């Protein structure tokens, strides 16, 4: 197992280098000038030439790349052109939001998707099957931005003033503030990586609220996450539902299921203990792969629901020609994707003891 993981990590290094190179080149192919995107169109040539010198944009692109990779090797992701701050601190502020959103979207997609798929498979060709698969097809077809705007309009405007009203944007109700963990626990003096980790966790408001037992903030934070999580999780939910249905139908036709039924096991146990466990193997793969889709889908979802995670950050970075941020975000997403794929592969061994990694 360890050898397998090490080998996978080593194989990931050239993949990552390739991604860095491609993103570096693509970012510089975006039409437009970083200076005027950052300083405004009235910035004159002299200001812009000084701007380019300051950010190293006056150097030939290969030289810029070598400098960038050199800094990257030292863990320096660079300084944002737009914000004038280290990208690491920007990511530390914004990545938790996206992780939190992706987690709840994935939770929604998995729970609802597997449940629908299971109902559909068990009641094959029944109205329930047709209904759930219609929901699944609708979910696959509807673009995130349409669903997002629709949800926001219905729950924030149409249902305004009813118990079903939900906030259309933001992470918390204006005026509600979350205390950072360092403050809540009296650790203001803490510095270095432990403080960074604490701040990172603090920025996941639901986790923060749970750890500090701030139930009102937890409820408020969850209310703000419902609509974006549904918007983001609907497509993977539909895929998971369809995959669960077909996989479970395959499994339910196998001999050992017939044996289990012949032994007189209750149907509920046949499905849960024998059918679902084996049927879930491809579903887990889909769930893992969905994470990549969730991170890219977050670009639209975060924009629609005004959530400043890395999706919105990369949108703003592309608009503002903030090359450093574009590169950093893509690298972080790529690493996340590689790690998740590895975790999914490793999880096979746990789900199916017949699988041996090596």
């Amino acid at each position: 197992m360890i050898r397998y993981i090490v080998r996978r990590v080593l194989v990931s290094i050239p993949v990552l280098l390739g991604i860095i190179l491609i993103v570096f080149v693509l970012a510089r192919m975006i039409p437009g000038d970083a200076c005027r995107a950052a300083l405004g169109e009235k910035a004159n040539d002299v200001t812009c030439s000084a701007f380019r010198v300051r950010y190293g944009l006056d150097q030939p692109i290969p030289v810029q790349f070598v400098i960038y990779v050199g800094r990257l090797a030292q863990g320096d992701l660079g300084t944002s052109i737009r914000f004038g701050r280290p990208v690491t601190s920007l990511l530390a502020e914004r990545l938790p939001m996206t992780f939190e959103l992706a987690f709840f979207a994935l939770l929604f997609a998995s729970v609802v998707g597997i449940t629908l798929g299971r109902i559909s498979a068990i009641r094959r060709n029944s109205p329930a099957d047709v209904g759930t698969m219609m929901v699944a097809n609708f979910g696959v077809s509807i673009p995130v931005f349409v669903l997002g705007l629709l949800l926001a309009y219905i729950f924030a405007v149409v249902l305004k003033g009813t118990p079903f009203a939900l906030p259309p944007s933001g992470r918390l109700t204006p005026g509600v503030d979350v205390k950072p963990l360092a403050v809540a626990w009296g650790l203001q003096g803490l510095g270095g990586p432990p403080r960074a980790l604490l701040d990172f966790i603090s920025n996941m408001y639901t986790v923060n609220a749970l750890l500090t037992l701030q139930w009102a903030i937890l409820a408020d934070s969850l209310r703000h996450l419902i609509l974006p999580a549904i918007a983001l999780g609907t497509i993977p939910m539909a895929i998971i539902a369809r995959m669960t249905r077909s996989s479970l139908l395959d499994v339910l036709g196998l001999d050992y299921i017939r044996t289990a039924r012949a032994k007189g096991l209750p149907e509920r146990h046949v499905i849960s203990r024998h059918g679902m466990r084996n049927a879930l193997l491809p579903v887990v793969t889909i769930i893992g792969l969905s994470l990549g889709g969730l991170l890219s889908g977050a670009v639209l979802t975060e924009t629609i629901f005004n959530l400043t995670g890395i999706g919105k950050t990369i949108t703003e970075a592309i608009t503002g020609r903030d090359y450093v941020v574009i590169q950093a975000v893509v690298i972080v997403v790529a690493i996340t994707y590689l790690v998740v794929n590895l975790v999914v592969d490793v999880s096979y061994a746990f789900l199916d003891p017949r699988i041996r990694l090596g």
Partner: protein
Amino acid sequence: MSLRMRSRLLALTATAAIAFTACSGAATTAPTAAAPSQAPSTAPAPTPSATAAFVPMTYPATGEVTCPSGGTAGSYNGKPYNGEFKSIKALDAKTVEFTLCNPDVAFLSKVAFSAFPINSAAYLQAHVPDGSIVQQPMGTGPYTLKEWVKGDHITLAANPNYWGPVKPQAQTVIVKWSTEAAQRLVELQSGNADGIDNVGSTDLNTVKNDPTLTLYPRTALNIFYIGMSNAFKPFDNEKVRQAVAMGIDRARIVKNFYPAGSEVAQYFTPCAIQFGCVGDPWYTFDPAAAKKLLADAGYPNGFNTTIHLRDVVRGYLPNPTQVATDIQAQLKQNLNITAKIDVQESTTFIDNANKGKLDGLHMLGWGADYPDITDFLDFHFGGGATQQFGKHYDDIVAALTKGATTADTAARQAAYVEANNLVKQHVPMLPVAHGGSATAFKADVTGAHSSPLTDERFAVMKPGDRNQLVFVQNGEPGGLYCADEQDGESLRVCAQINESLYSFKVGGAEVEPALAKQCTPNTDLTVWTCTLQDNVTFSDGTPLTANDVVMSYAVLWDAAHPLHKGRTGDFAYFPGLFAGFLNPPAQ
């Protein structure tokens, strides 16, 4: 100093901030008074200047600034100097004197700009070196910064020490941001926000028809125009340019492609700006007369040309390609001119326009930096203008120079009547539209308004029976030390925290005294003496003195000053409006 010179100086001085790091240790002039020193702290504490005997500062403290003259750079400290300031001097604790190198009739409009805030000298010394001022501004304004949750919102709390006659109506203001107009509207409709900026052009009727909301159209301080360069045929012929001026139905363009609140431009400068609309209004649409003029110019059958543009949405041009297509159709229909459309990348287009490389018609516009006619006419048609319209029109330059060097209202009026009439005669461009925009607020917000300069004042707004006002703007501020910021999103927030010597009237573009009771010029407009308000304190309790004003301007003016630091270090508005830095770094 000629306007051409001034323009060149803008370019020269813009590099100053960038090269500041290299120069920061050299040629820096300390004020004559002992600079108050204070450990970085936000705790309320009177500064030495408040407790000790007042020692007035002068900047620069040593050496003489030689002003630029007749196109030749001046000098200071052996370095060329092309700026407008000659010295800044505290005459006593409440009086500051600005000596300029050349008359500046727009001085008050410029100092009213929120990019020139007055900071506490002690606070600058404590918070500029470590850059914390960018995140933690402190000023005399009605609000103080309570928190800035990056990427999410900014919370402002009412300043308990606010000196002004009108105290902040809402105890808390929360500023949020969203780039999407639809999203901002949903925030307002859902009740999550009390006000939003820039209502989408397709949402205007939605807001108007909602009794719980009120729309506040914003006076447009911008201009969309169709430029023509006299360096290229056939636009070197004045009759051709006049024919184009008469041959395009501008009202049709505004009606079809502009949001409510927009208006057909009769002059280059919006009428909200003093002297903007003096002289003869623009030609009426008359295709027959236009065709005759074209025939007289030797083009009875029209000609082929190009419409250059960039596909970038601006307040003055919300639908660039649709407008270009309509102009193309009108040229063909009304003048038999065949035009092809050339869409260029934004910065390439601006470069090409400024360098006079656009050979046909070009679609461009301008938004006000400060509400004075010099910002519109001088920048485009003055001696320092770019080559956008080809060779400068000397008679326009002369009229503008007259207008910019006198404070006499009648003389200015006469100069701008002449200038506007000459622009109409020469037609370097065809003014088309002043593009409108709007804010929207809940109907129960009293004092709600929109500002032509986009610096809405939250202090005068009372959100019903609530104590908290939530406003959603387009974007997140880059930083809150607004001397070094340029975007309206930053400047709007800064304007709640910091104040300048003058300010613009709420919802208007006229200047009125703010931290200064008054600033009065000498007869030739080269010395402006400002008397400060009494009993003004910063939000940390420090009293405002003339030395704070000197220091606030000195750190902007002198590129080699150790406190000439901000988020980017560009301080682009200072050289933009006052022609140049002291100690500009070598290019």
